[in-house]
């Protein structure tokens, strides 16, 4: 565990030694406010909750998280530092976890820094704090899933741009598979079990109830299992492709 922590600290420091973390957090805060106030109409709804804020998270993460994830492995392979990393007495899993938790921490920090929104709804009315905490935790879990997908794509290529695009595409599939556009296409001919299965893979489906403050075991489980599976896939890909 000590090794993972050392790696975690290095990765985290590297986010803040470069402009990556600052740019990311700034953009995240600006975009999430824009979505919440202008598109989500937080004021006009006249309700003291953060639903308009959380509802846009899947779409916000769709572009922002791959931007954080794209460098994780691509950069190591491009610069050759992966050779240094993998010849240190650490396991690939430890390296992977260090990287994942560092990026996840940056995402968590970005979320925490949206606290003025919470203060705003507190000022406007009496929100249900339990709901908001649950939604924050759920959003962070979902961000972790986006991140695990992005890291897996980053492990596949040396090129950060390719990693970014691949990650956006794969994440997009997971987001829209629950939307009506996709489901309507299947509705006429596919049996309902197929439609339910497709919908159940979607981040939207699982995040919907979380955004309303319901942390159901199956939704939380879905994100945790997704994270594990995508990280495991990254592990296999890195082991296989690290020297290419």
């Amino acid at each position: 565990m000590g090794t993972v922590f050392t790696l975690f600290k290095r990765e985290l420091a590297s986010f803040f030694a470069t402009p990556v973390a600052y740019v990311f957090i700034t953009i995240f805060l600006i975009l999430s406010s824009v979505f919440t106030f202008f598109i989500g109409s937080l004021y006009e709804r006249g309700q003291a909750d953060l639903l308009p804020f959380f509802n846009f998270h899947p779409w916000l993460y769709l572009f922002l998280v791959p931007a954080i994830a794209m460098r994780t492995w691509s950069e190591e392979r491009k610069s050759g530092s992966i050779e240094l990393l993998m010849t240190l007495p650490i396991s690939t899993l430890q390296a992977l976890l260090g990287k994942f938790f560092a990026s996840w921490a940056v995402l968590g920090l970005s979320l925490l820094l949206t606290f003025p929104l919470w203060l705003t709804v507190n000022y406007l009315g009496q929100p249900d704090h339990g709901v908001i905490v649950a939604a924050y935790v759920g959003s962070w879990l979902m961000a972790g899933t986006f991140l695990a997908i992005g890291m897996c794509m980053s492990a596949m290529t040396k090129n950060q741009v390719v990693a970014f695009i691949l990650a956006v595409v794969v994440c997009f599939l997971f987001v829209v598979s629950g939307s009506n556009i996709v489901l309507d296409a299947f509705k006429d001919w596919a049996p309902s079990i197929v439609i339910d299965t497709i919908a159940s893979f979607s981040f939207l489906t699982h995040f919907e109830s979380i955004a309303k403050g319901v942390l159901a075991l199956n939704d939380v489980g879905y994100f945790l299992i997704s994270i594990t599976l995508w990280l495991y896939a990254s592990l296999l890909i890195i082991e296989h492709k690290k020297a290419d």
Partner: protein
Amino acid sequence: MIYVNNLSKLFGDFVAVNDLTFNILPGDVVGFLGPNGAGKSTTMKMLTGFLAPSTGGIQIADLSMAEDAKKIKKLIGYLPEGAPAYGDMTPIQFLHFIAKIRGLKGKHKAERINTVIKQVDLLGVLDKPIENLSKGFKRRVGLAQAILHDPDILILDEPTDGLDPNQKHQVRELIQNLAKEKIVIISTHILEEVTAVCNRVMIISAGQLRFDASPEALLAKSKYHKAVTLHLSYPSDISGLLELPGVIDMEHERSTGRVTLLTQNGADVLHDVTEHIKDRRLPVDTIFVEQGRLDQVFRDITQGVKA
């Protein structure tokens, strides 16, 4: 301590390393030579556990790479080709990171870091991001992390590439001072480096081991081994030199006045040659016995493979 058995590595159809078998014992300072793409770096990557061999096995300090890679990695210090490092870190941050990963602690850690900083002369750049450093400093940061935990086995892929002559000298001294009971493996393109620091030479070409002996033995393979080279101040009749016993051939560059006498099986002909020069009053201003020419031996060994 390093036992390599029938080691091969294939990338698709391309055979990068072809059935290498060798042992390296403590005290060996091995110079790994070979043309670009010969399989030097691939072999080093397998020795350090970065790449898994396609077939064959590596045993280091009674541990098998296939089973105990992590334990073996603790024993090895490795400078990968191009000395990669984390560019956004400063050398001091980087060394602290490596020290922690290597499990160095407290006072010992501080001591080791200070020692290597002095050894590779990094004091002036400790707080500059590595990506802003010159090629020479980057290489030295890479060396510093490789020797930080005072490893029993040091594997350096082109350690002096990009260094100026002073820095090269410094690095060679460093390696010579390290290697008393340690194993050092250096890959290089600089042939003189091998005679300067190594006590064993391995030449790899097309993935195969072509030569494995001492640098002296490598020199002895040269047709210029013990050849006598002399320089004439002005042109003169030197045909008599070719008739001296032991001399089998003569190379004469008329433009420079340089004459090289090749000898049979490294026979000692200097005495006869000087006698002859004295008798004929030849206008010789320089005369010396050659050790052998490494570049020519290198070409013979490595290009012979393709023919």
